[in-house]
């Protein structure tokens, strides 16, 4: 069985994003970019399945500008066998990402596609579910544990009340949550090796997908700032403030 993993190049999780001063978008000039953290977890899970002998090939896919090649090289340095870049400088929204992935699924015929549950830039949490819908495949979102069997995958999901387990027919879509695994660190020799791995570049047009955005960004702004608070000297002062000033207890 082959696994496809979707890896997005996103703002590094340590960076605090700010709107551009004219409100037309987010200021990403000179901002550190990394692989979306949930996608690292997705790659790690695919590699563990491969190491367990359940998977023959792991293919990483990224959609976006040329710089996404770095993200693919990172996935390959972690251990992915090859990469595919769907190259475009245009904005690609989750529905379009899902359609591009659908087209690649048709070509590659994987048994499982693993995505992150959420990209930490747009915070959409949509793409995996959309891809599953387009393909008519089952979906195991927010996965904390997956168990691949014969023709099925059991997914333990992080839900609001705790954990839920579902059994899905393969082929299926899984989206990775934080507790699925702890991604490995990339070792230097593997970075060198990754440079020699196959990386194909295609365009949305090659895949016959219209990526025209369906959502128009009208403007962006900073959220309202909180008024500055105070430090209290001790518990007595805290309780007094909560009772008499904030009136919340």
């Amino acid at each position, binding site marked *: 069985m082959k696994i496809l993993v979707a890896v997005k190049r996103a703002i590094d999780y340590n960076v605090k994003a700010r709107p551009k001063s004219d409100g037309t978008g987010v200021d990403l000039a000179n901002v550190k970019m990394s692989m979306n953290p949930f996608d690292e977890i997705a790659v790690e899970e695919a590699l563990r399945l491969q190491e367990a002998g359940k998977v023959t090939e792991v293919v990483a896919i990224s959609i976006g500008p040329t710089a996404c090649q770095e993200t693919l090289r990172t996935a390959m340095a972690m251990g992915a066998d090859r990469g595919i870049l769907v190259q475009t400088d245009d904005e690609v929204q989750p529905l379009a990402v899902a359609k591009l992935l659908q087209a690649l699924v048709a070509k590659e015929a994987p048994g499982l596609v693993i995505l992150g549950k959420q990209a930490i830039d747009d*915070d959409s949490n949509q793409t995996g579910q959309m891809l599953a819908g387009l393909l008519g495949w089952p979906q195991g979102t927010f996965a904390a544990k997956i168990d691949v069997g014969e023709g099925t995958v059991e997914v333990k999901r992080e839900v*609001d009340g705790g954990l839920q387990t579902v059994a899905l027919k393969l082929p299926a879509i899984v989206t990775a949550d934080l507790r699925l695994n702890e991604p490995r660190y990339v070792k230097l020799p593997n970075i060198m090796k990754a440079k020699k791995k196959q990386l194909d570049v295609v365009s949305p047009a090659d895949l016959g997908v219209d990526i025209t955005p369906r959502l128009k960004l*009208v403007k962006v702004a900073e*959220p309202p700032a909180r008024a500055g608070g105070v430090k209290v000297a001790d518990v007595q002062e805290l309780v007094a403030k909560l009772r008499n000033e904030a009136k919340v207890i």
Partner: protein
Amino acid sequence: MGALVIAEHNNTVLNIATLNAVAAASKLGTVDILVAGHQCQAVAAAAAQVTGVTKVLHADAPHYAHGLAENLAPLVVSLATNYQHLLAAATTNGKNVMPRIAALLDVAQLSDIIGVVSDDTFVRPIYAGNVVATVQSLDRIKAITVRTTGFDPVAATGGAGTIETVAAGPDLGLSQFKGEELTKSTRPELAAANRIVSGGRGIGSAENFAIIEKLADVLGAAVGASRAAVDAGYVPNDYQVGQTGKVVAPELYIAIGISGAIQHLAGMKDSKVIVAINKDEEAPIFQVADYGLVGDLFKEVPALIDALSK
């Protein structure tokens, strides 16, 4: 052309997050509610009472019992042509099913809206809430998930909706519910609590978390946690507050032994009053705290419990 809200429920009780979604939908036009489940008549009846609801669409079948997206999405799609807006609360269920519905309809989805500007333009946080985007949908049907903290819930009663039975679709047999491990607690639910006490890595162990629980009990509060506390196994995953956990906005949020990473702040910075207890006076949590107490939590929290118990 009104709005259809997908009810969140456990076949017995209507989840109050649905009331926040109805509040958002009410800004858009007439509101119908879909109650799809198994033997969920009580929920349909409750939904008909919700203020502002015109009609309850009730679909009952064993394969809707757990809200699995594979069967639920086609049902919603079959009803969708009558509506301009489809909404669900941005709970794990809503987030699971709504994008699938949107894809089947070939429309975009708007995640986690916190404001309605007009019938096609909405406000939603991005980048862990550090940026607020105003977004216009160009599609005919708008598929939306609603951040519950963005809209005050409508009243659960006072409405007089009609109940209409809709035929169930087939069981596609793609997925199967196997079981669940729900966190048991007698405390208020995190998402709906007026007061929350959260603990972070500073708590140090699952055993030590008892002091967080004790403070929560004194205050009648829910218990939350940072990702680090969940990852370390101090508490179950559904306690996580943050960008990728639950978003809360109680009257009072007390963060203890939590540093205040942007991912955590994203989930609690709209709380009315924030208290932070941390031994590091430089901890970023103090930047959003109304009241900051610098000190060792193992000394301060017991003292706080004492002071509040008096």
